[in-house]
């Protein structure tokens, strides 16, 4: 296995571990900014309805296995997207 493939595999394995830990034990999110805003009476009116609000698929809320699958799939999408952005930047450099 090349160094690059090994690095990507380690990244996917560690990321999957983070997703599983996040879904099983550390999923409760009460961020300071949200709490401060709510405490002072700020309200939100979303302009955008995201397809997967709060990292849960509609109809499968609270289903840990679905949440883990969503987390891992989108982590891989982030990895591939970032790789593509990095390659595009290199392409720009080689054309310049």
């Amino acid at each position: 296995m090349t160094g690059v493939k090994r690095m990507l595999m380690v990244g996917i394995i560690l990321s999957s571990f983070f997703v599983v830990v996040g879904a099983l034990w550390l999923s409760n999110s009460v961020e300071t900014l949200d709490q401060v805003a709510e405490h002072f009476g700020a309200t939100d009116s979303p302009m955008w309805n995201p397809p997967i609000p709060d990292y849960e698929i509609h109809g499968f809320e609270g289903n840990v296995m679905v949440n883990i699958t969503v987390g891992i799939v989108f982590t891989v999408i982030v990895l591939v997207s970032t790789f593509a952005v990095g390659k595009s930047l290199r392409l720009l450099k080689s054309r310049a």
Partner: protein
Amino acid sequence: MYAATAVFWVFSFRKASKVLGDKQIPLMATLTAMFFAAQMMNYPIIGGTTAHLLGGPILAMTLGPYAGLISMTIILLIQALLFGDGGITTFGANVWNMGVIGVFIPYIVYLLALRITKSRSGLLVGAFAGALIGDVLAAVFAGIELGLSTLSFPYSVSIAVTAMATHHVIIGIGEGAVTAIIVSVLQKTRPDLLQLPKLSPGWLGGA
């Protein structure tokens, strides 16, 4: 905030295309995915709130500030568009706080520590301090933005900044500890991944 952040986006995309090497691209993809996943792990702090790693300091210390900002932008964009985590109208402000302040400040503090001390312990102190200062400053900016949002937030800047900064000192200590541990491990096992001078802005002696 979009306009201020856009300046850094343009600058960072131009500079990143020049300094990113073949080794950094898979590293950039791996770290971006890892911190996207790590941001799903929320640990309890004080006052019933939770925190998660931001990842900006490690992105900065391994990829440099330009690619670090691009990585954080990708994370925040996917969170906002697909999961409604962060919002669209606040996207520019979020990238400013976590991508510009949260990446460039830890990077500058770390690099200065590297230049001043040149020792392993100084390096780790720089990594810890950079992450702590970066997280707290990012929170201070968020507090300022919240306090100035007079249409939706009828409280002063000082109230919002105090509330945000207090909690983020604790978050920053956590981020600093994790950052110092990762830098320490990388220094022992893969020192080639900590090539900061090559990835530095010109005014800090880099590319």
